[in-house]
């Protein structure tokens, strides 16, 4: 319990140190562009591939499971859309990104710590936490909503593809009708707001685990794993809280 409180305190202090005005805005924007590219743009392909396949699979599985004359066919499109908009493109996609981006952040900062690169920044009189962590948090919070929107589109495209490929159970027309049926645009905003919170969780927790690494390569590996596990747990916890706050 003491250890958990100590870590919580350390995390809050690190965030206080990180989230301040940058010393040099030009350097901050340079870092920000680099982080957006490295953490965000580089993740587009994995987001697209996963979303297409999962969208397809969701549509096929729903089609198989609600194959009843009492349930209208457009339910398949409707349910696929709701799953993708409400949970998959934000929460599940961010859990996947916590693995990819979170481990990247923790190992990068951790390696910088053990190879004294962070000390080198501190010696120059630069707030290393602000210089390294703030662009990552800002970059991810700015770009994750873009990835979520990509995921929504491609996930639904996967579902549409399934409706064309399926031999029975659903038709493209019924699927498309289902996609448009009882559409609530707030769900898109709900997803985007959730993803921004998740982006903060992933980037800040991973940065924390990387920043306080002590030791060598083994510890960097452990920090990377801990960052992914802790980010995932916190994403799930935040999911419950945000869903309760925004949808009930």
């Amino acid at each position: 319990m003491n250890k958990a409180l100590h870590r919580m305190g350390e995390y809050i202090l690190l965030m206080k140190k990180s989230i301040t005005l940058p010393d040099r805005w030009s350097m901050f924007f340079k870092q920000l562009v680099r982080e957006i590219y490295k953490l965000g743009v580089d993740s587009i392909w994995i987001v697209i591939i996963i979303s297409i396949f999962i969208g397809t699979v969701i549509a096929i599985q729903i089609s198989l499971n609600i194959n009843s004359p009492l349930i209208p066919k457009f339910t398949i499109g409707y349910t696929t859309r709701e799953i993708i908009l409400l949970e998959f493109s934000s929460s599940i996609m961010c859990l996947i990104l916590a693995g990819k981006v979170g481990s990247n952040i923790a190992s990068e900062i951790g390696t910088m710590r053990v190879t004294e690169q962070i000390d080198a920044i501190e010696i120059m009189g630069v707030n290393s936490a602000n210089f390294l962590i703030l662009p990552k948090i800002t970059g991810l919070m700015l770009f994750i909503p873009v990835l979520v929107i990509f995921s929504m589109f491609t996930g639904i495209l996967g579902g549409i593809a399934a409706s064309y490929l399926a031999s029975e159970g659903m038709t493209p027309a019924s699927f498309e009708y289902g996609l448009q049926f009882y559409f609530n645009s707030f769900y898109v905003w709900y997803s985007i707001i959730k993803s921004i919170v998740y982006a903060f969780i992933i980037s800040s927790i991973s940065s924390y685990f990387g920043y306080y690494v002590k030791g060598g390569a083994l510890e960097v590996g452990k920090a990377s794993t801990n960052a992914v596990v802790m980010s995932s747990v916190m994403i799930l916890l935040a999911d419950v809280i945000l869903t309760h706050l925004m949808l009930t």
Partner: protein
Amino acid sequence: MIEIKNITKSFDGRIVLNNISAVFEDGKANLIIGRSGSGKTVLIKNIIGLMIPDSGEILYDNRNFLSMNKAELKPLRKEMGMLFQGSALFDSMTVLENVLFPLDLFSKDSVRERKKRAEFCLDRVNLSDAGHLYPSEISGGMMKRAAIARAIALQPKYLFCDEPNSGLDPKTSLLIDDLIYSITKEYNMTTVINTHDMNSVMNIGDNIIFIQEGIMEWQGNKHEVITSHNRALNDFIFASDLFRKVKDVEASQEEG
């Protein structure tokens, strides 16, 4: 000039530095020597502010380092350059970008002038052809030289080197020593070098401090180190056959 007074540092009740006082003068290579685990790195980290001593004073040209606030520290930080044991070059930047880094942060010069200064520093350490390479693409000796170029980019008054020769072959070690020494003289810097390389001690030791188990055992220069009668120092310096033979030759020459 850097003056440290009664520096004491402990970790979990274990005293690592015990009441150490010393003066590091301008234009001199000031060496801190001692066995691994003797407290050399802890001392240098205390001097540069990466650790805070439990008690004592650190004066940079009579400016009390430990009582400075953030705003006062900033200009002093610009006067410090540091060469880390593993070079600590930023992996994501090229050699030229590494040298430009402190200039981009602190210099008010134009982009062209900053680049010119970075190229001059690289040229000074004979790395003018390696500016476009990443740290992973250059050798250990080149990394040390690039780190020296980055450390001197802002023309610091104080240069700190932590084990500058670790992991280098003897010839490259001498080149690095000579480079640090010539830069120290050229810019009249206060250079503090943490080392256990005896070649460095004999080559550039203008002022040497010997630390044993957190206590300053001896202070002198490269000429005095050979003739010292301090037992702990002799055990450390003459641990190798080569240096024992050097001492024997010196002793026989004195007798002759």
